[in-house]
């Protein structure tokens, strides 16, 4: 069997998919990053290796997400792309003709406007990084309900409570206030979903023209309460694709396929990557008062990448030696 790997390394979750040549997703993994992207990807590759038949040939690998550079170097990726492009590619592949993508993950939320299958505009949350996904997670655990039940409970709300949704901090204190007033839990959860949707449309959507078909993806799309709140606010049906929580990885695999199809041989280092020892060392550069913390990635004792320096002294030094080879 031949196919492509897509890896999306985010702040909260790491997703890996294996896609065959007909671009059907055969395997998908959803793992917690736990702040250890390399170890998580290694664990994921191990799991994937055991699930796939022994004669599997990986024709290309793509990485995306905030850890894309790091994992791209570790696995030998053919395509290293930002998550916006990857999500847009995946959405338009799984839902042909999609014109609007609403994406809410753990830390980042974004809106992507597509016209004629091409990204025409996008926006990501700015300045404040209070992630909607993480916030919902936290509220669920504070209210002692499982995050999976959150959406169903919210759907039962008959008259959603108005919650101040400008900022997670205000939303939380307003929620607590409403609880103390005696509102029931379902109405509060439904109100919270509406507040977050309002906030998203005002701060990320910012007057962009939202046309159907609308796709809602990212971890938060699992929450039916959020989906309903979007439908109510937009007055449009909102679709949640089958692989809503691994869309970045799907996009990365598609981008890898696109790169390899140009005739460039894959740089994938093989599933053996899972067993190699990777170490990240760090040192403080004292070349100037910025005192940058430079990160050094070693693969079995050999430095394979450096980054983190503002001036490029270290990163460029390695790039120059690469060019010399």
């Amino acid at each position, binding site marked *: 069997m031949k196919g492509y790997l897509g890896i999306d390394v985010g702040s909260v979750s790491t997703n890996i998919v294996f896609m065959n040549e007909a671009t059907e997703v055969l395997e998908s993994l959803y793992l917690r990053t736990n702040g250890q992207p390399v170890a998580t990807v290694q664990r994921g590759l191990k799991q994937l290796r055991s699930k796939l038949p022994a004669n599997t040939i990986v024709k290309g690998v793509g990485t995306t997400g905030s850890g894309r550079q790091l994992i791209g170097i570790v696995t030998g990726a053919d395509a290293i792309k930002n998550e916006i492009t990857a999500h847009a590619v995946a959405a338009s592949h799984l839902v042909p003709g999609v014109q609007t993508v609403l994406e809410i993950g753990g830390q980042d939320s974004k809106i992507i406007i597509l016209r*004629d299958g091409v990204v*025409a505009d*996008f926006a*990501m949350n700015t*300045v404040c990084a209070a992630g909607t996904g993480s916030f919902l997670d936290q509220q669920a655990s504070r209210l002692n309900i499982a995050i999976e039940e959150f959406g169903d409970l919210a759907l039962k709300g008959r008259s959603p409570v108005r919650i101040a949704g400008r900022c997670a901090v205000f939303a939380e204190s307003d929620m607590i206030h409403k609880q103390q007033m005696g509102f029931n839990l379902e109405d509060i959860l439904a109100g919270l979903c509406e507040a977050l949707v309002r906030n998203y449309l005002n701060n990320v959507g910012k007057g962009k023209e939202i046309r159907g078909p609308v796709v809602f993806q990212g971890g938060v799309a699992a929450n039916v309460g959020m989906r309903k709140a979007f439908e109510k606010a937009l007055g449009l049906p909102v679709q949640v694709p089958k692989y809503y929580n691994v869309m970045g990885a799907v996009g990365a695999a598609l981008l890898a396929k696109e790169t390899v199809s140009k005739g460039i041989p894959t740089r994938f280092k093989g599933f053996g990557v899972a067993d190699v020892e990777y170490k990240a060392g760090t040192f403080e550069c004292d070349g100037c008062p910025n005192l940058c913390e430079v990160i050094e990635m070693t693969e079995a004792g050999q430095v394979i990448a450096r980054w983190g320096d503002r*001036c490029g002294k270290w990163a460029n030094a390695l790039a*120059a030696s690469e060019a010399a080879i």
Partner: protein
Amino acid sequence: MKVTFPHMGYMYVSLKGMLEYLGIDVVVPPACSKKTLTLGVKHSPEFACLPLKLNIGNFIEAKELGADTIMMAGGCGPCRFGYYAYVENEILKDLKVDYNLVVMEPPEKHIGELLGRIRKITGNRPWLQIIKALRFGFLKAKAVDEVEVLSFQIRPRELVRGSTDRALQKAINLIDEAKTTTELTIALERAKELMRVVPAERERPALRVALIGEIYTLLEPYANVNIERHLGQLGVEVDRSMMLSQWVNDHLFMGLVRNIPSSDRFKKVAAPYLNHFVGGHGLETVGSAVWYARQGYDGAIQVLPFTCMPEIVAQSILPKVSAEVDMPIMTLIMDEHSGEAGLITRLEAFIDLLKRKKEQKEALTS
């Protein structure tokens, strides 16, 4: 008297040149760094914008090097910058970092007003010498701008990563070291030569992106997380709507020098979207978006410090401009909390968008 001033990109070259021409001692604060920002954030109100925080850091660091007089620009209108010089001086007083303050308010009617304010620093030096010094400082600003523009064109086409940055630094130092007008002419020629010999693929096509927005975050690379370098390395030729020589000519010399592109070109085309002053450079930002679209640029990026009122006004108008002139515009807000990784993700995605759009356009026209 030892004079210092806040950093704003390569402005120090010009100011230092002018003051030293008059034989005044100058202390250039160390380049903006993490230390500068840490000092600034610690002693500034939380809600102040990034420029104020970095200025405070600059002044504290300059004090350590023996400076005793601050030369600072002032301003007027809704932008808070107008009273930053005074607020900063009060903060420094509380910290027992004592300075004499000289504020260069832009002249309202006549260039003579500016000369009157400079008097505080220049003492009884003859007017002719002062005017010559002003001219010398201005020529330095122009020279720096010239090599910077060269770097914008070379960086996306360089063959060895980082070589443009190294050449640019050397070129700026050459201009900085020139002591007289004649020396400056020679230095500029050598500086341009340095830039010309950077190995690059001159003919390589590149996307063209305009950087528009607030002057400080546009000019100070520390404040904008080196956005020009990131874009250049992504293969994009940038143009900045605000160059130092242009700003000096517009605001301090009241447009006295000819042959310098003026921000009037932006104000003229802003009218259908915004037709009055909103403070700072809000009006110019809106106009520049229109202007660059008409010049055939592929996109524009608005850069502003968090809480900047004039730019927020512009930001809310830009989506309409973008739709009507058919040029994508992205906004980046700079703050001490801005993460570089997030910024790069947004830049990459924006460039992807521009590339696809351009490919589509070319496919349609061919």
